[in-house]
């Protein structure tokens, strides 16, 4: 009896410890990125002629090199996030990594003409893979002799582009205070609201999984379409069934379903793979679907991703 009790206890403890160890989801990465509006307003842009259309794209590198204000804001945000044990990914480091990528060319890649063309921001995000982008905009407004800092900091889920926390406000006008202090004040002003938004987002992640968008399409030369029947069921239905089985609580929404294309949004995928350790992103999750389609139809599938939250599976070849 006694031995049995001890054995049971040991098993319970082992299971508990394992579940705790395995239950740790990968910590989301956060990165502060200057808002496009801020880059344009402050002249940190690259300009080019896109087939007759004048376009401006943010020049993050110049922004980080020359704007002490932006660096001060990021440093202040980094400081408080560090205290929360969520170090902010360094934008400067990410830029260096992207630069070392031989294929990186901000201008040419952004106008490749492909539907999945990646903007410099997309490329940066793919390289750095932040889960949450902190899109930061601020400006100095003059009120007679005084200046105040007007800020707009949005925390955006990199997977869906949805705003997790919006923080818009203006600081204390002053004519005698150092601007750095005013910038720090702006950060302190939105800090707790931002952290609260982040907490809500994390709670939602733990509860409902990560939200992504999934597109399934076919190459023109693919023999089968989504109305092809396997057994008594169309391929499209089978895909939806797979989605139900492989999303958290079967949560997704079919936005469009035709014979050539299916699009799902609000797809809630688990935070990590079945092993409980490996973080799962849209691309990784999409591979599972691609494998299922191949097993069902025998067709190879190409898996492409855009950003972290959109995956496109193209049936009919890689």
């Amino acid at each position, binding site marked *: 009896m006694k031995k049995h009790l001890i054995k049971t206890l040991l098993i319970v403890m082992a299971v508990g410890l394992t579940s705790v160890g395995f*239950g*740790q*989801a*990968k*910590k*989301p990465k956060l990165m502060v990125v200057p808002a496009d509006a801020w880059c344009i307003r402050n002249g940190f842009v690259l300009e080019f002629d896109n087939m007759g259309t004048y376009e401006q794209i943010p020049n993050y590198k110049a922004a980080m090199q020359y704007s002490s204000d932006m660096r001060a804001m990021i440093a202040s945000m980094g400081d408080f996030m560090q*205290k*929360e*044990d*969520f170090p902010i990914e360094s934008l400067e480091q990410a830029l260096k990594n992207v630069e070392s990528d031989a294929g990186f060319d901000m201008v040419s890649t952004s106008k490749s003409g492909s539907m999945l063309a990646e903007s410099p921001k997309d490329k940066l995000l793919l390289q750095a893979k932040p889960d949450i982008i902190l899109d930061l905009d601020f400006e100095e407004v003059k009120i007679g002799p005084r200046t*105040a800092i007007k800020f707009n900091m949005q925390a955006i889920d990199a997977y869906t582009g949805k705003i997790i926390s919006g*923080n818009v*406000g*203006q*600081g*204390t*006008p002053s004519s005698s205070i150092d601007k750095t202090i005013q910038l*720090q*004040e702006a950060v*302190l*002003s*939105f800090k*707790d*609201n931002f*952290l*609260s938004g*982040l*907490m*809500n987002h*994390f709670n939602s992640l*733990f509860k409902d999984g990560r939200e992504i968008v999934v597109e399934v399409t076919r190459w023109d030369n693919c023999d089968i379409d989504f109305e092809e029947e396997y057994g008594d069921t169309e391929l499209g239905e089978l895909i939806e069934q797979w989605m139900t089985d492989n999303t958290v609580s079967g949560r997704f929404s079919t936005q469009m379903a035709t014979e050539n294309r299916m699009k799902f949004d609000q797809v809630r995928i688990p935070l990590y793979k079945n092993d409980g350790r490996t973080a799962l992103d849209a691309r990784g999750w999409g591979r599972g679907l691609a494998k299922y389609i191949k097993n069902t139809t025998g067709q190879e599938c190409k898996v492409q991703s855009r950003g972290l939250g959109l995956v496109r599976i193209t049936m009919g070849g890689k």
Partner: protein
Amino acid sequence: MKKLMTTLLVVMMIIPIASEAQNPSKRRKLFNNWNNYEVSTVQVGQDGTKLLKVWGFGKKVDRAVTQAKKNAVHACIFRGIPGNETSMSTPAICKDPNALESNLDYFYDFFETGSTYLQFVNLTTDGVPSGQDRRKVDGGYKVAIYVQVMYDNLKDRLETDGIVRKLNSGF
């Protein structure tokens, strides 16, 4: 042996009931004081702090000031603080609306007069509340004080004590 086990069981059952029932009138009083008070942000505070104007009621001015200090900490934990034109609002540390009820003993000890909550609040009023911030009302005084609440420290404490989750918990 059986007797011993029975006694132990009875004691174990009684202890939580007794602690739950300690000073029920005091507890009622502590919580009743939180039914209605005003709090507002004055300005963005120094790092890790909130600069608030908060009201409190008491039979005497001193007691009203003590209550106002409790209210300031209570607002940070449970209510959140509205912002103003130069500072954003501050969310409550405990988002769970049942946090107080589910941790009654903890918060009773926390808010007992002269207790833990005092570590997180600094008075920035010059002397006692004055002018319109010191009002005689039926049964006592209603006062407003300016306080600096150590919001980050308060949050850390509640996280460490397991009352609220840390931002990184689960990761």
